[in-house]
């Protein structure tokens, strides 16, 4: 294989000899001792059972929503499903970013991002079920699938895009790309743990290149199809970015809890330290601000230009139950995390950062509710509003419980950190100088 020489990248500039020196060093690194970087099934069993219990109970409660009406129960399930799908998507995004920037500090935390991202195909099975139900019922929340709006001038106009066949094809493309990226990124990374082949790092970086472009487009169109598309009249070019911001925000929040839990179990000592949590927290802060910026930009332009097809989204969400929910959303999704994360101290403390992460997941659930739940009442006589909050809470907790349960199964299967990444020495010595 030809040696590609590049400037300052730690893995590319490295020849086999230098990589061997890295491997020799890592072999004697006390922090990479087996019991420090592996989670046994026995250690995970308690939490695993707890999460499974939470998941089952949550889903049963959410299913109670079907008693109100079919759409309320369906929305509760969808809010939970999209909350965890966003978490997995955000984790995939960060895996790609870590590779494409060739960053050193995140080599030790990347494995957990890979684990979370590898649940994306399972989320896609959930979305597939959701899509089948939508198609079978002739549009439960994706109302344009039904016959209600046949002949509507906007529907006629958008028919080339908004038709069931194309929707299914698009979904298969998203699911295919994400499944490939999520499985292969984790697969190559764990393969490197076994083989110690430094070229796998190059391969992951190469695939991140097209992967991140594909990720950007598929995430945006996924959000257009399944969230924005619930009201076929509404459109916002910001919508893809808005959903992406939610993905990045929620995945960082979720992973902060994962790391804090692993550290409290006495795992990853000296591998994931306060320094890594600090930088993780900086990303949480950054994407809190990013969400605020994106959400405001979307709202601001629609508010200013005052075009009926766009404003109805917000006008509806400024009446009834939703007026309060919108205000709560601004507070919990932007203002409170902003002030919690702005200082240095909470970012470096595992307990603090996990608590903030839990709060941010709550905000994420509110965000998904804000997007999906109002659509339950669209065009209906009987107003459900937020009266089915218990079903939504059940749906979110249920899906997060099942998600966590499945994640633990991924976590016990492989080491908790990459063990032969060429950038690992950088990550192990990571320190924030400011």
């Amino acid at each position: 294989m030809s040696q590609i020489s590049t400037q300052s990248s730690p893995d590319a500039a490295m020849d086999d000899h230098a990589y061997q020196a890295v491997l020799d060093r890592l072999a004697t690194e006390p922090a990479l001792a087996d019991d420090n970087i592996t989670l046994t099934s026995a250690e995970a069993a308690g939490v695993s059972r707890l999460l499974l219990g939470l998941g089952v109970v949550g889903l049963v409660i959410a299913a109670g929503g079907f008693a109100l009406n079919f759409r309320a129960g369906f929305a509760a399930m969808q809010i939970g499903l999209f909350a965890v799908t966003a978490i997995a998507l955000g984790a995939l995004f960060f895996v790609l970013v870590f590779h494409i920037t060739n960053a050193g500090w995140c080599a030790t935390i990347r494995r957990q991002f890979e684990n979370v991202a590898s649940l994306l195909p399972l989320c896609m099975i959930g979305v597939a079920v959701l899509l089948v139900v939508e198609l079978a019922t002739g549009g439960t929340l994706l109302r344009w699938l039904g016959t209600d709006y046949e002949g509507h001038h906007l529907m006629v106009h958008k028919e080339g895009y908004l038709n069931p066949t194309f929707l299914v094809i698009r979904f298969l493309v998203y699911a295919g790309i994400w499944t490939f990226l999520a499985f292969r990124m984790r697969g190559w990374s764990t393969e490197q743990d076994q083989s110690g082949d430094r070229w796998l790092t190059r391969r992951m970086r190469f695939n991140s290149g097209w992967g991140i472009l594909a990720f950007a487009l598929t995430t945006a169109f996924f959000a257009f199809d399944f969230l924005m598309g619930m009201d076929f009249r509404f459109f916002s070019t910001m919508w893809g970015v808005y959903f992406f911001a939610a993905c990045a925000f929620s995945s960082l929040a979720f992973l902060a809890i994962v790391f804090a839990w692993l550290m409290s179990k006495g795992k990853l000592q000296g591998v994931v330290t306060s320094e890594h949590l600090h930088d993780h927290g900086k990303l949480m802060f950054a994407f809190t601000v990013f969400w605020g910026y994106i959400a405001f930009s979307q709202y601001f332009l629609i508010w200013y230009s005052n075009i009926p097809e766009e404003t109805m989204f917000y006008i509806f969400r400024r009446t009834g139950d939703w007026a309060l929910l919108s205000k709560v959303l601004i507070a919990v999704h932007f203002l409170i995390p902003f002030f919690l994360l702005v200082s240095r101290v909470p970012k470096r403390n595992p307990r603090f950062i996990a608590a903030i992460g839990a709060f941010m997941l709550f905000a994420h659930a509110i965000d998904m509710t804000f997007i999906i739940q109002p659509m339950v009442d669209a065009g209906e006589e009987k107003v459900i509003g937020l009266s089915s909050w218990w079903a939504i809470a059940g749906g979110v907790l249920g899906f997060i419980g099942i998600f966590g349960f499945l994640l633990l199964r991924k976590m016990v299967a492989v080491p908790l950190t990459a063990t032969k990444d060429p950038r690992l020495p950088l990550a192990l010595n990571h320190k924030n100088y400011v």
Partner: protein
Amino acid sequence: MADTRNKPGSWTRDIAMMMGTYIPGFAKPPARFVTEDGRAVHGVLAEFKTPAEVYHAAEKVRDKGYKRWDLYSPFPIHGIEGAMGFKRTKLPLLVAAIGFTGAGLGLLLQYWVSAVAYPLVVQGKPYGAWEPFVPIMFELGVLPSAFAALFGMLALNGLPRFHHPLLGQKSFWRVSDDRFFICIEAEDTKFDAQEVRTLLESAGSTNVELVEDDA
């Protein structure tokens, strides 16, 4: 009567010293130590040959409890802030205070202008609508924050300055090449030329000299 304004180590004296440096004609507090021919003493300068030596010397000076001293090196030395016992800077608090003040004043200004002093209907929007205020609040939060960060950093570092007493020392010129220096200043409350000299020599300095303030 004891003049507490001139007490070594007090912030009033620090400010008076700074003003005396920058503003011509501003009376500088008298020097704490003078040489036999009456010139003010800036401090004691010690030369070291390697980063490791200066690193360990810094730890010793830190442990002796000196506050007004600095270390000079041709390049950054990793971990030196720990060896010198640096505290975290107060700059973020300053930036936050100024940033929030700016954003708050931006809000007040716009609300007063568009809802109180001169209400004007623009595009049928309410007078006190908060939405159009946000970009300007953002700007007035960010710009003063950036200024506070830059100029606050310069002020806390005592910059800009056109001259420094150390630049008059010929041996110090090698600081941009291959020598490392520690200078303990006479403004330190614990300063005693003889003690400082002994400490720095025992810390492995090859050349210790007294620096006069030639300003």
